[in-house]
């Protein structure tokens, strides 16, 4: 028997299929790309990734345009064609290809599918877009949903929570995020590592917001980073780097990381205090917990005996807790991830309004169940990468009302948005002409932090 070589598809065909899979099956973009990878020529892969991110970043914008172009909506079973045209519109708009080539590439995809009937439709729609581009764009920009490329329910929530700032937040969520590193302080100083990067001709600067952060001017594959395999640095957004600083682990501490995978923050804790007594890392997914293990081997070889790894639901304390209370707890709770949309634009497709209530319940259970595992005088750091107050400030407010032995501890992070409890970091927007702004405020994701102390 002879095995068939997997037929490779064009970049635009792959883009359309992947985006369609994300949108219709509500599956995360990285998973969809990985599933389809063997059908993509390796040299096309970066292009396909960029195309997918471009479309998902501005999905509502392209959707508005395509819906205006269509006389009547396409059937449910033809969503693949819908997303093919969407990909074609993106290609015409931001694809760096001559228009005729972009149209040709897109139309050609229909020849290789069983939907040859769609050939003329795809062609007509793209040519109509080409003719009416400026009108269509201005119409799309007049509608906040398509202008800010944000689902209506989320737009309303952000408008409501941040009346004076919602435009900036939404614009920031559309920007391309920087690649941010965290220097492993046990191995080298930030200055040393900046020098190493300079030697490799990788332009970078110290991140002004954090002690160990470095902003790369251009994203690179981690294998190109000096000493990455040896554990000199990790990739982590600057907002997430406050975690270890705020929890501030001390020598001899027993610490719990309740939702640890993939372990970025877990490892930061031990990097900042290798003398802590024990670090218990729990995650509900055994598969994702394996990533924590990999990160331990890379970043803290020799400190393995300090870790206890358990695959469990942290809220189910009866199942995993031995009754010994912790000095400090990091609760990086499951959340809507609305603060990291610029890194994961597929969030806008995957989340729906009802998820917020489900997540609130999960977060509340985690807080309630983990609180008894904390020593008197101990500190719990509640963190989310959400910007929705229900998951953050309001969650904590409710918790404090029902727990008399809990108090919120004040702290200051330079870029936080004032809250009644804790600090809300918002995704930072950078206008291209404002260099001083870039230096002073850095460039971070949206995050929420609140320090709770047990009386």
């Amino acid at each position: 028997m002879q095995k068939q070589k997997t037929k490779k598809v064009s970049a635009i065909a792959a883009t359309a299929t992947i985006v369609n899979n994300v949108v219709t099956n509500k599956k995360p973009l990285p998973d969809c790309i990985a599933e389809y990878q063997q059908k993509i020529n390796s040299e096309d892969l970066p292009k396909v990734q960029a195309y997918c991110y471009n479309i998902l970043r501005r999905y509502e914008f392209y959707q508005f345009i395509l819906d205006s172009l269509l006389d009547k909506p396409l059937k449910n079973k033809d969503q693949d064609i819908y997303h093919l045209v969407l990909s074609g519109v993106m290609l015409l708009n931001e694809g760096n290809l001559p228009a005729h080539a972009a149209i040709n590439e897109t139309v050609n995809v229909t020849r290789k599918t069983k939907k040859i009937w769609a050939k003329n439709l795809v062609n007509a729609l793209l040519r109509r877009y080409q003719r009416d581009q400026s009108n269509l764009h201005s119409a799309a920009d007049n509608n906040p949903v398509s202008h800010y490329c944000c689902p209506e329910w989320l737009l309303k929530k952000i408008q409501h929570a941040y009346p004076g700032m919602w435009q900036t937040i939404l614009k920031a969520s559309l920007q391309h995020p920087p690649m941010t590193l965290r220097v492993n302080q046990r191995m080298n100083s930030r200055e040393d590592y900046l020098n190493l990067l300079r030697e490799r001709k990788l332009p970078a600067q110290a991140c002004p917001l954090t002690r160990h952060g470095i902003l790369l001017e251009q994203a690179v594959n981690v294998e190109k980073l000096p000493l990455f395999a040896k554990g000199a640095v990790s990739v982590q957004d600057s907002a997430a780097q406050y975690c270890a600083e705020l929890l501030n682990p001390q020598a001899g501490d027993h610490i719990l990381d309740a939702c640890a995978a993939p372990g970025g923050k877990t490892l930061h804790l031990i990097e900042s205090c290798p003398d802590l007594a024990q670090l218990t890392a729990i995650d509900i997914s055994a598969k994702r917990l394996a990533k924590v293990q990999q990160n331990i081997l890379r970043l803290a070889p020799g400190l393995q005996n300090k870790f206890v790894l358990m695959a469990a639901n942290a809220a189910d304390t009866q199942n995993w807790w031995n009754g010994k209370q912790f000095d400090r707890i990091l609760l990086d709770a499951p959340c809507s991830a609305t603060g990291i949309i610029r890194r994961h634009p597929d969030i806008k497709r995957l989340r729906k309004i009802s998820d917020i209530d489900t997540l609130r319940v999960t977060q509340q259970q985690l807080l309630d169940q983990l609180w008894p595992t904390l020593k008197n005088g101990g500190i719990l750091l509640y963190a989310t990468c959400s910007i929705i107050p229900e998951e953050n400030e309001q969650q904590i407010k409710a918790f404090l009302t029902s727990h008399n032995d809990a108090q919120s501890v004040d702290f200051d992070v330079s870029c936080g948005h004032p809250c009644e409890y804790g600090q809300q970091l918002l995704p930072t927007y950078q206008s291209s002409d404002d260099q001083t702004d870039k230096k002073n405020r850095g460039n971070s994701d949206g995050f929420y932090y609140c320090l709770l102390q047990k009386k």
Partner: protein
Amino acid sequence: MALLNILNFPDPRLRTRAKQVTDFNHKISELTDNMFATMYAAPGIGLAATQVNVHQRIITIDISEEKNQPLVVINPIIVEKEGEQAIDEGCLSLPGIYEPVKRYDKIHLKAQDKHGEFYELDAEGLLSVCIQHEIDHLEGKLFVDYLSEMKRNRIRKKLAKALKEQQ
């Protein structure tokens, strides 16, 4: 080791029903070595002795990417089968032709190795398909037999044309 000549469809010798192997002598071992060499060179993932004009119930298989998991299947019997799958199959006797064929998804196989030792094997996915495809060869059956008469004729013409162009 030597490379063997692979018979091409519609060669009538491909229709021969193969005989049970009873004498596991050095010739069998030599044959399987040559069949592996021929199969790897083709390149293919499975070869039945029928395809090299030896009409004994002998199959060589290796579905690994690294070509490091050779499997010799002699006197095979499928004792259990379940499920259904259809992947595009190709055959070294019909180069360049790929068509989906309905097969059992999971099979349980009893067979002998090249020394005549009996063994059992659970197979699914590609391995299962490959075993079923090769056992068909031993029966004088080809995967195109599962297709419609029209499709089979089209393939026959296509192969004849390709052969003509080669000469």
